[in-house]
Each structure stands twice: as C-alpha cells, then as structure tokens.
C-alpha cells in the first residue's frame, strides 16, 4: 500500500520530466513548409560570429550564417549592450568567441565586439550590439521588426549598419 502511494506521488513528476524532455528533443525537427529551420541561438558562443546579408521584404538586411535575422536595440546608445535578464532571454545576443567574420556584402570594418555583463563577447555592427529575437523560429522571419519591448524599439539593419524603421 505504501509503495503504491509513493508511486502515485512520483508518477506526475516523472511524467512531467519525460514530457519536458521530449519537448527538448523535439526542437530542430522538420521545419514548417515554406520556411527553413534555423538553430536557436544558444549561450555557447559560435566559433566566429558570421554576419551575412539576406533579402527580405525590408530589402537586404543583416542575418547570421544560418539566415536568422539580426536586430539592433534602439536603447543601446553606445557599443555597450543595455539588454540583459529577461530581455536577453527574448533577445539573445549574437556572441562570438573569435573575431567575427563578414559574409558577402557585409563590410568587415563595421564589425566589432563588445563585452557583456556576463563576460561573453557580443558582436557589434557599425557600433550596434546585435541580437536575435526568440519569436523568430526560422530563417527569414522578421517578427521583431519595429516592435517596442523592454523600453525601446528593435530594428533590422542594412548592410551600411543603419536601422530600417518601417514595420
């Protein structure tokens, strides 16, 4: 009787862990039709934060080497990032453990880095720290364009490092 009751108490915990675990492995499954999956940004810095260009409805904008859209945060008035905590969870910084690389059409002299509060190195472009948006789940998505979160607007960037301000 005691064993049965203990099992009853443990069962939901085990089920929840298994469900959560399945969710974790579910990531990276086949993408929805019409879009290509791009790896979610992780805390592990890429060997070299490559910045590329991609054509979107906003014109050619900065993306990473997987085609994920990169944004600037209007609240960043210098190369120092002002996005941390919950902001950094929703807007993960593009980090790099090596000198960032410029893809075709990207000006390498505009690329730089900045130290974040947690010690990681974030890639900058024309002095703007670069971020992903957690709601962009596939390459080519720009769901974060021109939205206001954490006190300021978020914009995609041109090859010249200028923000595109129309939504």
């Amino acid at each position, binding site marked *: 009787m*005691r064993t049965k*009751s203990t099992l*009853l*108490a443990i*069962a*939901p*915990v085990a*089920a*929840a*862990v298994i*469900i*959560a*675990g399945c*969710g*974790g492995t*579910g*990531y*990276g499954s086949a993408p929805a039709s019409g879009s290509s999956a791009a*790896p*979610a*940004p*992780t*805390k592990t810095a890429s060997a070299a934060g490559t910045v590329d260009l991609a054509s979107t409805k906003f014109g050619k904008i900065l993306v990473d080497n997987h085609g994920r859209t990169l944004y600037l945060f209007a609240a960043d008035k210098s190369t120092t990032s002002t996005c*941390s*905590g*919950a902001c*950094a*969870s*929703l807007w*993960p910084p593009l980090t790099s453990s090596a000198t960032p690389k410029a893809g075709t059409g990207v000006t390498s002299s505009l690329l730089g880095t900045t130290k974040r509060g*947690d010690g990681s190195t974030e890639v900058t472009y024309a002095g703007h720290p670069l971020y992903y948006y*957690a*709601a962009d*789940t596939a390459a080519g998505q720009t*769901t974060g364009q021109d*939205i206001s*979160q*954490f006190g300021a607007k978020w914009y995609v960037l041109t090859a010249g490092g200028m923000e595109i301000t129309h939504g």
Partner: protein
Amino acid sequence: MAERTRTPSLTAVRTLGAIALLVIGGVHYQQYQYDFYSAVPTIGPLFLLNFISAAALGLFLIVPVRPKQGGRGRRLDLFAALSGIGVAAGGLAGLLISEQTPLFGFMEHGYRFAIVLAIAADAAAIALLTLYLVLARGHRPAPVEERGHPFNPRPGMPAAER
C-alpha cells in the same frame, strides 16, 4: 488526540503548498504579460497554461469550498495535490532544460530574480504537496459511525436510549 494534532499540520502543509502554486502562477503571468513572453511561440502559451493551472489548483487547495467531510472531498484534495506536483515539476524541468539547451526553440539567458523565484516556488510546491500526500495517506477521515452522527452524537448508543 493524535487526530487533533495531525489535522492542523495537514491543513498547514496543504495551504503552504497552495501558496507555492500561486507564486508559480504569479511569476508565469508576470513573465507572460509584462516581460513579453506572450510573443514567444509555444513557450508563451505554455506560460499562460502554467499560470491558469497553477492558479486554479492553488485556489482549489487553499479555499475550503469542497466538502469538508467524507471521501469525495479528500480524493479531490489528493488529486489537486498530485496535479499541483505535476505542474510544478513540469515547469521546473522545462526551466532547467531551457537554461542548458533550446526548448521549443527558446533558451533562457541567466538566472534573474524571476527565474530564481520560480525555481524556489517549484521546489517548495513539489516538496510541500508531496509531504501533504504522505501525511494525508495515513489520515483517513473517520467513518460517520465513529465520528458520531449529527442525530446520534454518542456512537454505539441508539438515539432512542439517550
């Protein structure tokens, strides 16, 4: 006498577990509504679901609206406590996984106050509600004959003899 000392502790443990569930729901609602998690695919709806289920179970366990006596009320309490453990454990597992690797394409970034609070509340809810289940296991409500029927407060003696 042992019955009298055990009942308050059972109620206290259940109430504290319910409060932990309400804290879990509150944190998820705050993150969903005010920290823009509503915009994140899958994770946003899961936060809302967590808030609804944790708040409903917490309120159920804390407010004495169900039958006070009898097996049905007790079974509802135990089911709510089990469900509360599931909600807390699911949330905790998801949070810890998303700190290490993307979960539904989303990854947490660091251990800010809301995350520490959620982990503490999840752990407290799991521990308290599990303790409640263990205590409640050995605390069965006395049958009506033993407790004394409202019309026959002295068990064992027919009402007509009093």
